């Protein structure tokens, strides 16, 4: 029977506590940091001439769907009643949201060094030491809203604009794809200033600190963010039942994207599952 992923704002106090406890248990046993490493190892930019599976690529959505499922499976080994809640950032769009309270994600980073000082993931609590990141800093960092260059979270209207896309993805299957649901949702755009940061990318930028870089998984809010990104994809799939994953076939020899992107029935590292296999999640989980 499928389990439910809930909006984080609708969790009871007991549900919040159970989720945090399961996350902390995975951290204690070292399982959590395996997920941090996997994400770090799979960030390849789209001008590098290498295969991209996780970002700047059509498989951005199925790769993260599988990544969340693997994490959720580990959480549910610890506590079978837990699932990954989602953060609807179009609605809970300020640092005052209960998302950031002391019994859940904890608060913003302090001014001097962006260190998160409150909540279960504050370094001083002794249960959340950063082991795999781009610097040797050992504490979780955040910079909510990026005060020195302020940015706002995506709005409902901006998300609805993305939902109106009718095609999953288009050539050249990267951050420069001018249309297509995947690149619009991932959030790469041309332009000046904060206009360049859209939807999914913009949320990483709004949280700031570790969420800005390759080690973003170190911030547990990563999972709640990507749970919502996955929900948006799921709703888009419902609206567009005929819109399959693209590209259906691998780009041919001679195409600039030859061996750079994953086609519908090709395996994604590190699990070997295909985008097609990740298309229908209804037997495993649903969104409330």
């Amino acid at each position, binding site marked *: 029977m499928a389990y439910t992923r809930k909006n984080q704002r609708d969790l009871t106090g007991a549900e919040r506590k159970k989720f945090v406890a399961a996350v902390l248990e995975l951290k204690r046993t070292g399982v959590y940091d395996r997920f941090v490493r996997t994400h770090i*190892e799979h960030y390849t930019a789209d001008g590098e001439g290498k295969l991209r599976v996780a970002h700047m690529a059509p498989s951005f959505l199925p790769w993260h769907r599988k990544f969340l499922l693997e994490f959720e499976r580990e959480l549910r080994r610890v506590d079978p009643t837990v699932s990954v809640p989602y953060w609807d950032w179009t609605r809970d769009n300020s640092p005052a949201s209960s998302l950031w309270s002391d019994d859940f994600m904890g608060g913003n980073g302090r001014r001097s060094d*962006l260190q998160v000082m409150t909540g279960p993931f504050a370094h001083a609590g002794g249960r959340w030491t950063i082991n795999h990141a781009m610097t*040797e800093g050992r504490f979780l960092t955040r910079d909510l809203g990026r005060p020195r260059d302020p940015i706002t979270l995506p709005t409902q209207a901006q998300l609805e604009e993305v939902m109106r896309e009718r095609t999953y993805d288009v050539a050249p299957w990267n*951050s420069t794809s001018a249309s297509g649901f995947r690149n619009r949702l991932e959030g790469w755009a041309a332009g000046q200033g904060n206009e360049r940061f859209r939807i999914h990318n913009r949320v990483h930028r709004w949280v700031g600190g570790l969420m800005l*870089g390759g080690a973003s998984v170190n911030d547990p809010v990563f999972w709640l963010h990507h749970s919502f990104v996955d929900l948006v994809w799921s709703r888009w799939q419902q609206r567009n039942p005929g819109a399959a994953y693209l590209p259906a076939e691998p780009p041919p020899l001679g195409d600039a994207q030859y061996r750079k992107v994953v086609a519908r029935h090709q395996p994604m*590292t590190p699990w070997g599952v295909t985008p097609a296999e990740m298309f229908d999640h209804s037997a495993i989980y649903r969104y409330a």
Partner: protein
Amino acid sequence: MTFPRRLALRSLLTLTAAAFTGGALARIAVTPRGGAAVRASGGTFDEMYRGRRIQGRPAPAGGTEVLVDGRPLHVMRCADGGFLTPIDHYQTYPTPLAATRGAVDELGSAPLSRFAAAHGVHPGGSPRGVHA
């Protein structure tokens, strides 16, 4: 630098840092491959920025090798013609120098870790053999 000393260098960090010592940067600047186009694109630099020493030079295998306080920072090319670093995955910059300065802006006070050099290198995809 003597040959035996070089043999004693073990880590990627040290090797990369060693390549930047002595006259290495000066020599590169006058070779044809490291010429005006590379400098104009911000690919060769050595400066202090917000208290950090940032250095860049063309990598033998293409792209740019960058050090921040002697530690390697992976600068990746993007399809839009820009560059990004593992410190900030969501902003591309017009040059490696701009990307490096952007990374320093976000770094805080902590030194780079080894992951900043090896990131984006999943199994089977390493161009530089830096994935231990």
